């Protein structure tokens, strides 16, 4: 299934860095997120977009992950040539990630 089935997401920007939250609708899916939505996978998913590193932070109280992606916004929001200079649409791309689910966790 797609990540979109179990999580919601929002993108923020600062300079040339984008951050994307991935928040479980239901805390029971948080272990699944931690296991499958890794920094390496997010970086691979955004091939051609993220030019820097991806760092993942975990917030267990709210069953959320926060991905911080450097060198992602075309040199910075205020100078980027991109149509979406803020990268606000990136969260929707991340929710397209494929998640493998054990039947009982649905």
């Amino acid at each position, binding site marked *: 299934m797609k990540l*979109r089935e179990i999580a919601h997401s929002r993108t923020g920007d600062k*300079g040339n860095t984008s951050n994307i939250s991935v928040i479980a609708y239901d805390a029971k899916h948080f272990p699944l997120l931690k296991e499958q939505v890794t920094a390496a996978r997010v970086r691979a998913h955004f091939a051609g977009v993220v030019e820097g590193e991806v760092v993942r932070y975990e917030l267990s109280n709210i069953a959320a992950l926060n991905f911080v992606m450097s060198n992602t916004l075309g040199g910075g*929001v*205020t*100078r980027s040539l991109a*149509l979406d200079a803020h990268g606000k649409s990136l969260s929707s*791309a991340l929710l397209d990630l494929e998640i493998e689910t054990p039947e009982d966790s649905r």
Partner: protein
Amino acid sequence: MRTIRIGSGAGYSGDRIEPAVELAEKGGIDYLVFECLGERTVALAQQARMRNPDTGYDPLLEERMRAVLPLCAAKGIRIVTNMGAANPEAAAKKTAEIARSLGLSRLKVAAVIGDDVLDACKSHDLPIMEFEGSIKQLGNKLLSANAYLGAGPMAEALRGGADVVITGRASDPALFLAPMIHAFGWAMDDWNLLGQGTVAGHLLECAGQITGGYFADPPYKDIADLARLGFPIGEVGEDGSLVVTKVPGSGGVVTAQTCKEQLLYEVHDPTRYFQPDVVADFSQVSVEEIAPDRVRVSGGRGTKRTGTLKVSVGYVDSFIGEGQISYAGPGALTRGRLALDIVRERLKLTGVAASELRFDLIGVDSLHGRQVSAHANEPYEVRVRVTGRTENLREAVRIGNEVETLYTNGPAGGGGAWKSARDVVAVASVLLPRELAKPRVQFVEG
């Protein structure tokens, strides 16, 4: 326990005005905060001020003030805003003038000045954080340097009896922290309280982004009545307790989900959210829905502030030229790609001097690039977009021209060509030793 209610009346400079009026009218609020100053806005405002010394503040200041001042004055709601942009003093004078014209001559207006630290930055030649280089190396391209001030001067203005406090560059959460510090007498070294207050300010500062804006994703996340989206209210207790809510009957929702998304918005390491007054820690925050449209947010903490203030440095970076044209119907994608190839080659043939070029098909790959979009379906229509960075306006203009000429020199059926060329004021950051910024409060006669 004492509690104050703070309404968030704007999340950016162009934001809707009617939700702020609704807050003042029906929100039962004590304070109304307008966050209107984006990263680069202050640099653009500085350019405006250089052309005319009486300007340089937010272009919507007058419209917003006229809309809310009578209500706020009648109900004793105090206003805090960064609409001063590059000229808080002129903004305060203008506001006092508007108040007079509305028959509110007793209104006390204060400006916080001193965020302009251009001279201090120049004389210390500070290194730039985003790229190799220093302030001096920007030379005459340097436009402005504004420090993110903390809540202290704004709280001082409130203590002095200001009904309206107008700042230039200040940290966004600090606009909300100031009323808390003033109302509850929080110590400026009570890091946990300042940390939790920062959580409140951070959640509220983008206005509609916590009440259902930037959120709806049907059918997974449905939001009712977005057209009448209401703006949030923070109920803050003197112990830092926080309930986020909104005006009953307004559009949108406040839920655990909207609060969680906004908590992480523009946050990097959640254990270290750097602010002028505190290093806030969001990592232990919990949210709990206690009633419809009422979410309790707790667990914000903080550690000691750093010795530096972040400074936004505005500079003339480059010029950007752009052109767009559309293709539709059978074969639209193929003709769009052909158009891009033609422009790519022509820019070379005609020797347009661009340091960076970008070739997009809007509707196909313009947002996430070709790799991420590789598996998308073929669309009915596409829009060609070519943009490039140049050193002067003349070269930038040539980029849009090479797209426009596709009308008569490109594939069949190209329509709706559009072009632009503009200078780019960009923003970088430096860290300024905190003692070099000397903010002060100035009251303006009403």
